[in-house]
């Protein structure tokens, strides 16, 4: 019965074809460094899921943000676990994405025909860092507040347009409720949407072009 349902679906959806192109594709003999992209992808999924769970209780407003985080840590069952995973997953993701980039760099995997894969990768690294930057403010504790104060001052030192950029980041001259709200919006909507899109293109290219070989000596 299950087999007949599957055949019926497969005939219409092409499941086997998807499986064959995505998972059963030809891969050269590779090593552990080649798993870092998949690890980055896995961490992104973890961050997305734990992040969704955090928004169940988190409130992005200066009068409630801190208390809502305290509530997640002490008041909700397994809140500490979900927040802990999201917290450590964030650092780990930056780390993995970065080492993944180093691996593709040192193996020369960015060369023809994979330039666009590399380019989407560059944006993936930047958006991943953006997630870290916007997420750091959300607990609205002293550390978050001052880190963001300094973090938004840095682009502020750029000549001519610096202070304008700083005001855009902050949503005004000071760090305020507006800053918290926009960091939250960017953290949970804008950047994840962009990252998802970039991952789609990145993965399409990885599948379309295949994985590069480990370079041989003299290459």
């Amino acid at each position, binding site marked *: 019965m299950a087999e007949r349902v599957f055949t019926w679906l497969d005939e219409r959806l092409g499941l086997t074809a998807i499986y064959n192109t995505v998972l059963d594709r030809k891969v050269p003999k590779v090593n552990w460094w080649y798993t870092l992209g998949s690890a980055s992808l896995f961490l992104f999924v973890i961050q997305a899921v734990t992040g969704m769970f955090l928004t169940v209780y988190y*409130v992005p407003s200066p009068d409630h943000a801190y*208390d809502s985080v305290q509530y997640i840590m002490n008041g909700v069952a*397994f809140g500490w676990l979900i927040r802990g995973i999201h917290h450590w997953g964030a650092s780990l993701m930056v780390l993995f994405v970065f080492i993944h980039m180093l691996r593709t760099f040192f193996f020369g995997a960015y060369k023809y025909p994979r330039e666009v894969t590399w380019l989407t990768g560059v944006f993936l690294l930047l958006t991943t860092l953006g997630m870290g930057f916007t997420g750091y403010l959300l607990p609205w504790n002293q550390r978050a507040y001052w880190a963001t104060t300094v973090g938004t001052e840095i682009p502020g030192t750029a000549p001519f347009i610096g202070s304008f950029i700083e005001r855009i980041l902050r949503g005004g001259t000071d760090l305020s409720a507006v800053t918290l709200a926009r960091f939250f919006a960017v953290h949970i909507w804008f950047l994840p949407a962009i990252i998802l899109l970039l991952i789609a293109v990145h993965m399409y290219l990885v599948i379309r072009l295949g994985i590069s070989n480990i370079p041989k000596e003299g290459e």
Partner: protein
Amino acid sequence: MSDHLDRREFVKIVTAALGTIMGAIVGLPAIGYLISPALRVQKNEDWISVGPLEKYPVGKPTLFSFTRSKVNGWEKTVNSYGVYVVRTSETEYTIFSNMCTHLSCRVNWKDEAQEYICPCHDGHFGQDGSVTAGPPPKPLIRYEETKIEDGNLMFFFKES
């Protein structure tokens, strides 16, 4: 096929078992996380002390106000309540809620009228709590469970 497991079958079973265990490890905390506020039932009844009986003059309903706080998640709400303590004699007393039974405004005891009068739609209640005029459908709520402990008059408060 022989009756012992072949390799394919074995891998299938192990995968299913590990998958179930991992699913439970991930899924159960997730469910607990989502439903945990629903499992916390707040006590909405308690003994409230209105102080020594002598504080209240015989024959004149006297207001006693108190607050109770509720914690919901990251928010604390403080609600205030009022009761009228009525000493009908040296030893007898009644405690009424000051909440109008019509639409929950607070009633006030008026000495001139010898009645509780509701400011909202002009409901009137007699000293015994019964409705004497206006829209209220029921007499004032009476707290039946009372006691005197360490010289203090207490009543059992239930939030309606």
